[in-house]
C-alpha cells in the first residue's frame, strides 16, 4: 500500500507537488517512522534516522516518532527513516530536505552559492565515506555481523525467515561493496577512511559552532546523525569510536547539537507535542 502511494505521488509533476506542498502548512500529525530503537536498529539506520530528526528539529517542525519493526518495508525507497506528512510519504534526508523547502522551511537560505556547493559536497562526503564504512563494518566484518548485526536485524522475525532475510541483505551489501570497489578492503583500511573523513570534517569545522558559522544547516544534521550514533553505539570493539574521539571539536559539536536541539525539547515535551526522541545514551 505504501509503495502504491509513492508511485501515484511520483507520477504527479514536481511543480504540482511543490505547489500543493506550499499551500498546505506543516500538519500537527506529521510522523517519522523508524525501526525499533532498542532491539532492532543498526548503526547506519540509526544514523540516518537521527539525521532526519535533527534536521526537522533544527527547522522547528514538530514530528511524532513511531518505531515499527517493518519500517524498512514500509518505506517507499526501502530505506529508513521516512516521514508521513498529510497524504505524502517521503524517505531519506535528501528528499525530506527538498520537501520541507517546498513548504517554506529551509536552513540553507542564508548561504551564498559557493557555500551551498560546499555544503552539498560535504554531505556527499559523509554519505560516500561514513555511511559506506558503517555498512561495511556491519555486514562485511564477520565478528560484528555475528555478534551484533545478525541478532538485531533478525530480531522481529522467527527462524527460517530471519536467516533468509539476513542472508539476502548480506549478499546485497556485499555486491554493493564490490560494485564501488570496497570489496577488497581490509577492516583497517576502512577505519583509515573513517579517520580521513573525520579529519576533513574536523578541519572544515575548525572552531566554528556549526559548519557554516552560527546557523545550523542540513549538513550539520547529517554529520550529527552519523557521529553521534558512532559515539554512542557499543560495537565489538572501540576502534570506530576512538577514530571520532580523536577530534575534540567534532565531539564538542555533537554535544552542542544534542544540548540545543534534543535536551531542551525533552524537558518540555511533556507539555507540547513536539519531537519525542526516545532517550538514547548521552555523550560521555
Amino acid at each position: 500500500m505504501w509503495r502504491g502511494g509513492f508511485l501515484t505521488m511520483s507520477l504527479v509533476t514536481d511543480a504540482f507537488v511543490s505547489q500543493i506542498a506550499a499551500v498546505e502548512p506543516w500538519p500537527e500529525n506529521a510522523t517519522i517512522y523508524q525501526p525499533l530503537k532498542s532491539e532492532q536498529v543498526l548503526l547506519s539506520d540509526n544514523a540516518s534516522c537521527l539525521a532526519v530528526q535533527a534536521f526537522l528539529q533544527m527547522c522547528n517542525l514538530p514530528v511524532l516518532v513511531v518505531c515499527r519493526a517493518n519500517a524498512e518495508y514500509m518505506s517507499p525507497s526501502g530505506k529508513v527513516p521516512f516521514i508521513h506528512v498529510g497524504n505524502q510519504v517521503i524517505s531519506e534526508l535528501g528528499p525530506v530536505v527538498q520537501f520541507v523547502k517546498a513548504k517554506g522551511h529551509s536552513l540553507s537560505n542564508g548561504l551564498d552559492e559557493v557555500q551551498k556547493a560546499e555544503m552539498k559536497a560535504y554531505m556527499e562526503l559523509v554519505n560516500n565515506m561514513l555511511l559506506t564504512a558503517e555498512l561495511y563494518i556491519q555486514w562485511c566484518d564477520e565478528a560484528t555481523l555475528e555478534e551484533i548485526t545478525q541478532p538485531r536485524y533478525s530480531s522481529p522475525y522467527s527462524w527460517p525467515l530471519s536467516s533468509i532475510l539476513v542472508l539476502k541483505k548480506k549478499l546485497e551489501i556485499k555486491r554493493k561493496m564490490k560494485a564501488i570497489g570496497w570489496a577488497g578492503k581490509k577492516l583497517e583500511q576502512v577505519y583509515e577512511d573513517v579517520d580521513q573523513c573525520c579529519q576533513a570534517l574536523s578541519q572544515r569545522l575548525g572552531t566554528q559552532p556549526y559548519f557554516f558559522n552560527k546557523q545550523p544547516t542540513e549538513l550539520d544534521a547529517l554529520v550529527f546523525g552519523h557521529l553521534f550514533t558512532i559515539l554512542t553505539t557499543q560495537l565489538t570493539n572501540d576502534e570506530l569510536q576512538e577514530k571520532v574521539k580523536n577530534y575534540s571539536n567534532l565531539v564538542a559539536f555533537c554535544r552542542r547539537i544534542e544540548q540545543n536541539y534534543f535536551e531542551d525539547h525533552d524537558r518540555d515535551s511533556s507539555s507540547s507535542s513536539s519531537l519525542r526522541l526516545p532517550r538514547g545514551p548521552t555523550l560521555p
Partner: protein
Amino acid sequence: MPHFCPICLLTCPLLSGRLPALKTRQDGVIFQTSKIITHLKKQKYNADYDLSAKQAADTLAFISLLEEKLLPALIHTFWVDAKNYVDHTRKWYAETIPFPLNFFIPNQMHKRHLERLQLIRGESWREDDETLEKQLYTDALECLTLLSQRLGTHRFFFGDSPASLDAYIFSHLALVLNVKLPSSRLQQHLRSLPNLCQYCASILTIYFTRDGETFPRLSPKSPTAESSDYEEEPNKRRNQILSVAVGLLAMVGYALLSGIVSIQRVSEDKAVELGLALEEDEED
C-alpha cells in the same frame, strides 16, 4: 616527470575498475586512480603541496560529490542509455577489441554497469524506469551547476594553480564535453555553463597540446571517413575469409552428419570390381 602530470590521471574512470594502470620500476604496476596518486605523493610528486588543511578537506568532499552524483549519470549515459550504447559505446569497444572477444566483452560490460547502477541507486532500478532515470540526471545536472558555482571566476578550483581536485574534475568534465553522443543531456547542460567550458578548454590547451598532439579521440571512427576504410582493410578481408570458411565447414559438417553425403572407404580391387559392375549396369 613534471611536477604536475595530469596525463597519468586522465583516464576514463568508467571503463573498468582496473584502469588506469601506472607501470613503475620499484613497485610494478599500480592500478586505480587513488592508488596512483598516493604512489606519486610518496615519490614527492604532489599537486596538493600548497593547499591548506581546509582545502585538502574540500578536495575530499568534492571528489565524493563527483562520485555520488555525476558518475552514476555518466555510467548511464555511456552504458545504459539504449541509443548511446548501441550507436556509440558498443561500436567503439567492438572496434578496438580483437576479433572473437568483441562480440562478448561489450555486452558483458553493459551488464556489469547496469548492475552497478542498480546497486548504487537501489534494487528497484530497471533499464526503462523513467522516474529513477530522471532523478539520476537531476542529481547530475545539479552537480554540474554546483561545480560551476564553486569555480566562479577562478582559473582553477583553488585559485591560480592546479591541484589533484582539478585533475579529477577535469577528467569527468572533458569526457562529457568532448564526446559525440546521439543523446547527451549532460553535455547540453555543461555547454550552458560557460565558466566550466572555459576551464576545460584552458586545461586542454595548457597540458594536452605538447608535440602537436591533440586531445584523445572520444568518438568511434565515423564510417564516412576515407582513411578508416584503408585502416580496416586487412581485418575486413581476413574476417570475410574466416566467415566464408566457417560457413563452408558448417555446411559440410551438416551434410556429413545427417547422411546426405556419405564417404565410403573401399579397397582398390573392390573399387575396380565396383567400377566394372557399374559399367556392366550401364551397358545393361
